[in-house]
């Protein structure tokens, strides 16, 4: 019954828009990941299935190479073109190498978007970033401020002094720090993404700033090392460690109380949003153009920039209430 209605709908709406879906029962959306067997992407696939169930009449093809190579992804893309899928949503292993294959897909009427890890503008209709620099910068200080109602001294433990991402996030954080009353950023130190150096820098912060209330580490090596240093100093709970980290890496430190909350993108939401966007673009319900909005179901809508990319949402906050659900995922 469903098949018939969707067929009818497709033929009636007809025209040029639905040409590829006209001869398929369901809309088939391929979620192409960097490599199979990575927890983060398995979680994204879960989100994609959730979106498919919500939309109805959508089949998710979760696929990718067995190792993270561009060659492997090109093979996967070629086979998807042969299968005449309706949309490809890809997290790319190489920004440029995939462009020719993806262009070929678009010429065959396949909707192509990238998410998580992007491809160059000519190889996709739009790119979905998990978050944006201003949102991340705001979130890392907000998490510290939320647990410090009376304010206090906080310090930043970054990766290397030349790390582009971290520097942008810290810059964005410093722009909004004034919105959080009583929060003072007293120092920014660099652990170079080395466990031992980050650990020492965290120890140094504790001894040179006796009133320190929180350490913000927007790097996964740094946040783990800082949490360990705080625990070893017997200050778990007194000095809060927050920033960006992965649930699997931080689970023990949330248990010990060294970290109350930290953030990173939610892969389930990311897979969900990528599927919703692919669906809307393939259906012709939205167009990928600068300044345009594309619906993402329960996550609202993404607004595209001039380079046709957009940010999904605030980084997702993990704490004692949800860490156990996510620590096995990624």
């Amino acid at each position: 019954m469903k098949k018939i209605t969707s067929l009818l709908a497709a033929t009636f709406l007809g025209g040029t828009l639905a040409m590829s879906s006209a001869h398929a029962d369901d809309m088939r959306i391929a979620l192409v990941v960097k490599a199979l067997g990575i927890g983060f992407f398995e979680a994204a696939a879960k989100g994609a299935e959730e979106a498919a169930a919500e939309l109805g009449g959508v089949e998710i093809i979760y696929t990718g190479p067995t190792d993270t190579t561009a060659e492997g992804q090109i093979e996967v893309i070629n086979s998807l073109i042969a299968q005449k899928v309706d949309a490809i949503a890809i997290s790319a292993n190489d920004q440029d190498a995939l462009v020719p294959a993806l262009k070929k897909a678009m010429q065959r009427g396949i909707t192509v978007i990238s998410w998580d890890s992007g491809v160059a503008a000519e190889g996709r209709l739009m790119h979905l970033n998990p978050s944006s620099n201003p949102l991340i910068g705001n979130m890392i200080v907000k998490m510290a401020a939320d647990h410090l109602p009376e304010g206090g001294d906080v310090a930043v433990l970054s990766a290397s002094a030349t790390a582009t991402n971290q520097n942008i996030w810290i810059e964005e954080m410093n722009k909004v720090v004034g919105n959080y009353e009583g929060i003072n950023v007293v120092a920014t130190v660099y652990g170079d993404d080395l466990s031992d150096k980050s650990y020492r820098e965290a120890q140094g912060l504790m001894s040179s700033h006796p009133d320190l209330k929180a350490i913000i580490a927007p790097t996964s090596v740094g946040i783990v090392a800082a949490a360990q240093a705080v625990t070893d100093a017997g200050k778990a709970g007194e000095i809060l460690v927050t920033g960006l980290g992965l649930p699997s890496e931080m689970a023990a430190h949330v248990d010990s109380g060294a970290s109350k909350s930290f953030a990173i993108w939610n892969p389930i939401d990311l897979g969900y949003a990528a599927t919703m966007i692919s669906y809307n673009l393939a259906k012709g319900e939205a167009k990928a153009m600068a300044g345009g909005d594309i619906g993402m179901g329960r996550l609202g809508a993404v607004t595209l920039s001039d380079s046709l990319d957009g940010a999904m949402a605030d980084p997702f906050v993990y704490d004692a209430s949800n860490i156990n659900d996510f620590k096995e995922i990624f």
Partner: protein
Amino acid sequence: MNGIKISRDALLAIVLVCLIGLIYLRFPGFASPQSLVGVFNDTSILIILALGQTAVILTRCIDLSMASNLALVGMCTAMLNSALPAIPVPMLVVLAMILGAMLGGINGLLVWKLDIPPIVVTLGTLTIFRGIIFLISDGQWVNAHEMSPAFKALPRLTLLGIPVLSWMALFSIAFMYVLLTRTPMGRAFYAVGGNPNAAVYTGINVGKTRFNAFVLSGALSGVAGYLWVSRYAVAYVDIAAGFELDVVAACVIGGISIAGGMGSVAGAVLGALFLGVIKNALPVINISPFWQQAISGSAIIIAVVLNARSARRPGRIILKKAEQL
């Protein structure tokens, strides 16, 4: 000869005390006994590795694979612990030592049997060991919650006010001191490095002695591997990346002659402590991260220049005298 060595170690000790004094002027908390115990504890792993490297350098070789060996053994023990938490931790430490010794033995065999220059061999195994970590771990981290509490607790346990991590370093120092000064094997290290040809005539098997030195440095790297992953409660492919250079630097600062045959346990320990003090002081004296690197580098060069001046070999002069007669 002996007089020079003692004075050089004493000189380094004086420099170290002056350095701590300078840091004290800028950040008084640094010189508190508690803080100094912390610095020693933090430097323990470097000391253990520097002692192993000393044995190798004494035989006129070099072991660049120590940090990779540490990382590989660390990853193995962490994976073993997370898969079979029932294995008692002391046994894991022994396993780590054995595995490290085997990896060191590979270096030793290549140097001994195939006569490949040690720098080439260990540069190769440096990369190979890292590659193996990736293969066995699939690039995944072993995280704190996957390790058993006992696994993480051992180096933090305090005995007589000092953590076990520091005791391990103290024990290694005592062991190496006895080995190098009181055993035939230790004397063979000096003989092989000082003059390999002469060593052969005294009945020392040069290749085998070098093999022994590599096994020793491997075993110490293995123990350090366990200590590292349990101290930082995380194991991943890149742990201790580049640390081999710190180890060599510690030895060079400590007056272990790269030409072999000269050096002492005290020198290696002081060299490691010198680096350890700088590494621990830089975060608290509030210096730009770009200057920090320059300062660490300059300290190494200054120490080496001082050593090079005092390490002029008196042997040549004796020969000249012989000619004049």
